[in-house]
């Protein structure tokens, strides 16, 4: 059996708060093979982004750790490129310069000037952004910014591509468009990808495996679903297939039956409205029951 590409071993994460440490993750274990597309799904606040940040090295796990090709992850690095939710492009640089900064940093000595130029263009072509290379982030749409964010991450030639709700801030049509683009890119590059999402369809459409996380605090991996749908996948064809709906239901059942999200009401909020107790009392009881 070949060695595991990326491995999370009994990862705990605690955040210090004024009221003592808050345990976000407890005993998270995950093994990921090379070229696998993994989705992390769960209710908001379950710590799926925390897992991603630990793999990225932006957070340091309180206990346990991450091994990439047998080496321990210590701090962030371009071999674990991150696509951030809100694109995080440098607003004073053009699209081209944003990618250039990454390419110049990662391939400082290994690529010649001409090679770097070609590589920047190649990556912008890949995300279909070659027509707006001289535009600044403020001049392009949200979907385009996210494309550039992906191009910048891909240009680092990462071992693992980490995506933190990459399409979460986009409208449904743009999102579908970008998902198709991502599948297309993934078919050629065969990167290892970890994507955080809260969109069930997105997870089923894109992933090889869906990692469903239990609710926090002290969240861990609840279930893992192997999505062995044939590739290339077409969202229109899949929509009618029973296998596709099987995976959808599996994730939905986990999220809405096994891990019902209880919205906790902040303690201070009702107290301030103590005068209106009569009017509000009904709402409060229903909230508590839910």
């Amino acid at each position, binding site marked *: 059996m070949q060695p595991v590409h990326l491995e999370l071993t009994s990862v705990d994460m605690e955040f210090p708060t004024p009221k003592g440490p808050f345990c976000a993750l407890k005993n998270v274990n995950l093994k990921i093979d090379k070229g696998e597309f993994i989705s992390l799904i769960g209710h908001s606040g379950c710590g799926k982004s925390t897992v991603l940040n630990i793999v990225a090295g932006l957070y340091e796990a309180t206990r346990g750790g991450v091994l990439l090709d047998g080496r321990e992850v210590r701090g962030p690095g*371009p071999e674990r490129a991150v696509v*951030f939710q809100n694109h995080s492009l440098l607003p004073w640089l053009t699209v081209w310069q944003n990618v250039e900064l990454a390419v110049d*940093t990662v391939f400082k000595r290994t690529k010649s000037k001409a090679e770097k130029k070609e590589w920047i263009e190649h990556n912008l072509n890949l995300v279909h952004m070659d027509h707006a290379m001289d535009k600044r982030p403020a001049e392009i749409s949200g979907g385009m910014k996210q494309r550039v964010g992906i191009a910048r991450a891909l240009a680092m030639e990462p071992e693992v591509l980490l995506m933190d709700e990459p399409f979460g801030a986009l409208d449904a049509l743009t999102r579908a468009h970008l998902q198709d683009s991502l599948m297309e890119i993934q078919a050629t590059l065969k990167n290892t990808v970890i994507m955080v999402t809260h969109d069930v369809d997105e997870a089923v459409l894109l992933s090889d495996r869906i990692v469903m996380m239990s609710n926090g605090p002290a969240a861990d991996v609840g279930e893992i679903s192997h999505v062995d749908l044939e590739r290339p996948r077409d969202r229109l064809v899949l929509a009618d297939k029973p296998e596709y709906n099987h995976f959808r239901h599996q994730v939905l059942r986990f999220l809405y039956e096994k891990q019902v999200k209880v919205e906790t009401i902040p303690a201070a909020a009702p107290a301030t409205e103590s005068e209106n107790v009569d009017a509000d009392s009904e709402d409060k009881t229903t909230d508590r029951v839910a």
Partner: protein
Amino acid sequence: MTASTGTKALPTPTKPSALSTWISENSGAAIRAVLLPLTGIFFFLILWSASASHIVTSLGKFPGPADVATQAMTLLQEHRDERAKANAFYERQEARNADRVAKDPSYTPKFRQYTGKPTFIDQIFTSLYTVLMGFFLASLIAIPLGIVIGLSEKLYAAANPLIQLFKPVSPLAWLPLVTMVVSALYVSENPTFEKSFVTSVITVMLCSLWPTVLNTAVGVSAISPDLLNVSRVLRLGWFTHVWKIVLPSAMPMIFTGLRLSLGVAWMVLIAAEMLAQNPGLGKFVWDEFQNGSSNSLARIMTAVLVIGAVGYLLDRAMLGLLRTVSWDKSASTR
């Protein structure tokens, strides 16, 4: 009643001319841009001339707008006369030298500088030169200091009380100290700069440092955590991080600070020049005050208006610069 007056009373709906259309479409903007400021100035002039005639000082009546306009013209004329004199002096000198060289080829001609007193116009430029020098030195210290402080919360906490302590200090309080220190340390046989100039520049610098330091520090510390994460993922070195991420990100704030600093510098300079006796607008005002002629008040008032106008132009120039360098077009540009 004739037909023409009838149409005036009841205008027939004709097609409006291009000009009137333009005026009606842009009337709001036009009024705001031209008419309202002009109205403001008009009422100020009326109020000024009305109250000026009632104020009688030991140097005569307080000058009204007309007196000031006359003195402004006089000052301009004095400048032209002085220039003409200087040119005449140089012409004479040249002719004399040419004459002597013609008679005796071995003679090396001597050139002397014209030593007339600086005119009002000269003093405006001296003041500008001094203020820009002080402002430049202040920026040279303030921007790096602000960056270093902004990058580290601990350094910021350590430096903040000192900044708050020195920020409100008046230039008049610094000046005696600066004068003494400059006299003690700036000793040279053939000084490049006058001592009074150095004193003014340093005082301007000390007072105009703070807005830039504070704004730079705030701009640097307010950098978006997402951009910091980008920098971390790319493993940028300290210098690259500051140069490529921190500095451009803080640029709008830095320039806001610089703009405030230049305003402070100009205000401080006039006071510094008065006391340090550095040639410039401050000294002009002081000399006119000491002179005490019947024209003095009008000449001082002219200087006041010029000081205001120069300050305004400096501020506009900084704003223009801020707009060109700032990537954040939503940043305050008023």
